[in-house]
């Protein structure tokens, strides 16, 4: 395993599109780093620059102590899992797993051992002689993971590897990837647009938008201390409620107040808390909790409430949020601000 470092890395395409802008980020050895952001934010481009599949326009990428800007993909000692599996269709599962090892002149006995071990870990032992077309989607993705594992590389690069699986399989495979990564302690960069995946998998998360790194940190840090309104609304589901501070009597026009849906309670505001009157528009029952969509003047808010709370569409009620749960952002820039 090896640390990975971006030093002022930029990517500009021929047509002038700046996919990544001066990215500075250090990923420590053995860390599981998740790049997350909406489509077109540059997360996959950043990953592909580490893999050597995209040329770096400016800055440098380091794997371990080595600057790899001009090192070919095969010499970077990385393994990549693709969104679309990218298995070799004319090879069996065993041949798919062994292909990269053969190219590195690893002994036959060692190849057999690694393929056997990976197949055991990924529950592929009964499918080794099958071709990819005879496998289910989940099995194919496990083969793609296995192809990375057998290499025992310095780093895993994963480009939305679960996005083609159904919901149940995604949860199961998510856990498998985490177990494998923890067991091997291999530095991993994992790209996803799904903030739930990012929150549940990453040791740290790097949130990107329009090619710019917005914030990096642990899931808890990003959730509780977002650097700006973009991170605040992108991380967490449902998104953080953002309200102009004066609406809640919390400060000047230049500030936006933000609070998470789970911090809203159905009660008149006790002393020191923030209160507001809102009308319930829709209630989504989720079994263990319910989401109440509220209307506060022109603003739409969401409250995550216990199912015991009696809220009905159309009713008007008093809601409260603990003062310490409210975060503040500059209205002009969206950057986190000190409380007034």
């Amino acid at each position, binding site marked *: 395993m090896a640390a990975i470092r971006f030093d002022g890395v930029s990517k500009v395409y021929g047509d002038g599109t700046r996919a990544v802008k001066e990215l500075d980020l250090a990923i420590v050895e053995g860390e599981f780093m998740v790049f997350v952001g909406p489509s077109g934010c540059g997360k996959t481009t950043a990953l592909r620059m580490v*893999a*050597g*599949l995209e040329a770096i326009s400016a800055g440098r990428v380091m794997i371990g102590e080595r600057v790899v800007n001009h090192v*070919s*993909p*095969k010499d*970077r000692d*990385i*393994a*990549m899992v*693709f*969104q*679309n*599996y*990218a*298995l*070799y*269709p*004319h090879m069996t599962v065993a041949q798919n797993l062994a*292909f*990269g090892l053969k*190219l*590195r002149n690893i002994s036959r006995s060692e190849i057999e051992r690694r393929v056997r071990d990976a197949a055991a870990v990924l529950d592929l032992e009964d499918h080794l002689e099958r*071709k*990819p*077309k*005879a*496998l289910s*989607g989940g099995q*194919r993705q496990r083969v793609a993971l296995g*192809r990375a594992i057998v*290499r025992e590389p310095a780093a895993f690069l994963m480009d939305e590897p679960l996005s*083609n699986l159904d919901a149940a399989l995604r949860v199961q495979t998510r856990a498998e990837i985490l177990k494998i990564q923890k067991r091997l302690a291999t530095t991993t960069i994992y790209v996803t647009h799904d903030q739930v995946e990012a929150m549940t998998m990453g040791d740290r998360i790097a949130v990107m938008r329009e090619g710019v790194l917005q914030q990096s940190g642990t899931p808890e840090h990003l959730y509780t201390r977002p650097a700006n309104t973009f991170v605040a609304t992108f991380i967490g589901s449902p998104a953080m409620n953002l309200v102009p501070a004066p609406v809640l009597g919390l400060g000047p026009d230049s500030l936006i107040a933000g609070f998470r849906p789970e911090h809203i309670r159905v009660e008149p505001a006790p002393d020191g808390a923030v209160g507001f009157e809102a009308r319930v528009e829709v209630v989504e029952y989720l079994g263990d909790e319910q989401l109440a969509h509220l209307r506060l003047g022109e603003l739409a808010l969401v409250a995550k409430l216990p199912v015991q709370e009696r809220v009905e569409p159309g009713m008007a009620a008093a809601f409260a949020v603990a003062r310490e749960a409210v975060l503040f952002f500059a209205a002009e820039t969206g950057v986190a601000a000190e409380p007034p």
Partner: protein
Amino acid sequence: MSVFPLGRRRQRLHDASPPALVLEDDWSRPSVRWGLGTAHTVLLVLLVIIGLGPILWLAKSAITPTQDTLATPLALFPHGFAWSNLTDAWNTIDIGLYMWNTIVLAFGSLIAQIVVATTGAYALSALRPKFGGVIMALLLTTLFVPPVVLLVPLYVEIVHPPLIDHSFVNNYFAIWLPEAASAFNVVLMKRFFDNLPREIFEAARIDGCGSFRLFFSIVLPMSRPILGVVSIFAVLASWKDYLWPLLVLGNTNLQPLSVRLYAIEDFTPLGYFLAAMLITCIVPIIGFLVFQRGFLRGTGLSGALKG
């Protein structure tokens, strides 16, 4: 609403067939059922007559006594058989030698065309040289030049090849080299390579493939369908080529069947001649029947990618 591709029976046999223009409800109408059914039958019979008729006539005539063929050439059944036509043709016309020449020419052309088409297309599609677009445009331009226009300049090139002070006349390279320079094959192959999933190429590069290894271990095995198509085109074109071998292969011991059969027509009994033609035709027909399923089915990419 479900639809029938051609008819009810066919719908049952090929449920996965794409929908056709004639809907299930239309097929229930007698006028459509009878009208289209009759049209299908007539078309099928016509196609069989046009496609198979000449070959069946040749097969019949090859084993018919020469006098019988001359007297009633269009008779459906022969008046007596002359199986000896086949052995006599083989022995007296020396078909074995000319067939061997034809096979060598065809497979030499095949190899030359495959090598040039695959490497050229790979370079243009995967390696993407700086002026690849210009090269591709030039290749496409050559497709618009009628082959007959090239006959004389090509002959001059073969007699006085550039850089080599040695004529290729009466040498099989006179056939193989021009065949290899087929722009059509390169364009066809490039179009196929362009559609191969790039993620697989990228996965292979990360796995450790250089450009050569990527070509031999990934691209070629994934290209079996198009290799099959080009192979069939190459072998058939070479097998039936007449004019160019006639020009560059003056030595009768090197000539293929297509040239030799025409040359001997005037002094060979018709029965022998037709038997020789049958033998000449049967080889590519059998070859096509044996290999066409393997060559033409599917793209061989299923399972590689999600989708």
